[in-house]
């Protein structure tokens, strides 16, 4: 119980939310590649590759990034 409350308060869990052409990623580590058809993010357990067209970053905070564009696939490695 306490653990779950702690998780909610600290909010340090890696998460991905996809809404139509927007992808919101929380608690990522770094941006490795930033291109219009490929964005690679370093995440706690490896890398996340996002493929698509006209990909742009619309928000870039300490641990949150929001990416817009027509996303075709996601790949964890």
């Amino acid at each position, binding site marked *: 119980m306490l653990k779950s409350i702690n998780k909610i308060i600290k909010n340090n869990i890696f998460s991905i939310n996809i809404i139509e052409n927007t992808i919101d990623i929380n608690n990522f580590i*770094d941006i490795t590649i*930033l291109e219009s058809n490929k964005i690679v993010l370093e995440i706690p357990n490896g890398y996340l590759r996002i493929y698509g067209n006209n990909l*742009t*970053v*619309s*928000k*870039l*905070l*300490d641990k949150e990034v929001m990416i817009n564009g027509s996303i075709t696939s996601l790949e964890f490695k």
Partner: protein
Amino acid sequence: MFNSTYLLSIKGKDVKRFLKSLYRRNIYFISITITNNELICKIDEINYNKLKDIKTSYEIKVLKVYGFKRIINSIKYNVIFIIFFIIGMIYLIFLKNIIFKVNIIHDDKKLVEIIKNELDELNIKKYSFIKSYDYIQKVKEKILNDNLDTLEWIEIERVGGVYNIRLDKRIKNSDEKKSNLRHLVAKKSGIIKKIIAKDGEIIKKVNDYVNKGDIIISGEIHKGEDIKNNLSVNGKVYAEVWYKVRVNLPLYYYEEKKTGNDINTIKIEFLNKEYNIFNKEYKNKRSNKKVLFSDFYNMFSINYSKDEELSIVDQVNTIDKEKYAIILARDKIINHLDTNEYIISQKKLKTTINNSTINVEVFFKVYEDISSYSYYSLN
């Protein structure tokens, strides 16, 4: 509350790469729009300050500032205008509260001068501050009290920066200006019954008939044909005065009075005719009924009714009416008599009946004070 945000335009060779490097330097963005070689982003103040410290070949331009900083910037930009505006407002408020003119409206220059001096003392003068309503009321009261003999009324009206002061001079009663010399004269026509003279020369005798305005006790004291002295006469004269009083009354009299008896009963109503089932019926009554049952067309109904018995007076009595009219006529006379005055006699003159009214004419002889005074001067 005091956080500000900046809308920036960053131009350069590879803005995406620059964005990555900024992120690695812990500079974060609230929103980002990337076009060809331009990065348009929104950034908060802390991150903007970090960004300012970075030395780069990329062109960074502030497009817009939001929040508290924007207010500060616009104040800085318009500081001269704001200062002049505030000074202007203060000056306007100052001018609005200054008296520029005090108009005392009256023909009497002496009175105007007195009031002007008093207003000056009370600080209602040119180039002084406008006064509050309460203060003005106090000033009015004070001026009126200070000039009780000369001033009847004062009104202080403010029109912008001008005070209009309207005065009403006290006009001394004309009686006061007259001499104190007076005759005792008859207020009404009548036959003198009693003369009480404290001073003066009695001209009329008891049982003399006098008309209204006739001198009864003169203020001029004669010796032979010469006037020896002039007095202010004091006295009282009682006389027999005649009155004719006419009273009109309605002839027909109708009165409904509750006797206090009532009964609760149930009635059947059929074709607007009532049939009492249980109790006796009053001859004259007032019914409060409640419908218990009724058919669709209201031809038949059963009602609960509370009947109150009434006594009805319905009469045409000319004799009683005549007596009553005489009493009313007498009351009319008595109402305006003082303690020493009384009705000597009365006589019914005539009674006429017109349609539904009775008209009674009564003649009265009244013992009444007829004293009045007429002032005169030696000139």
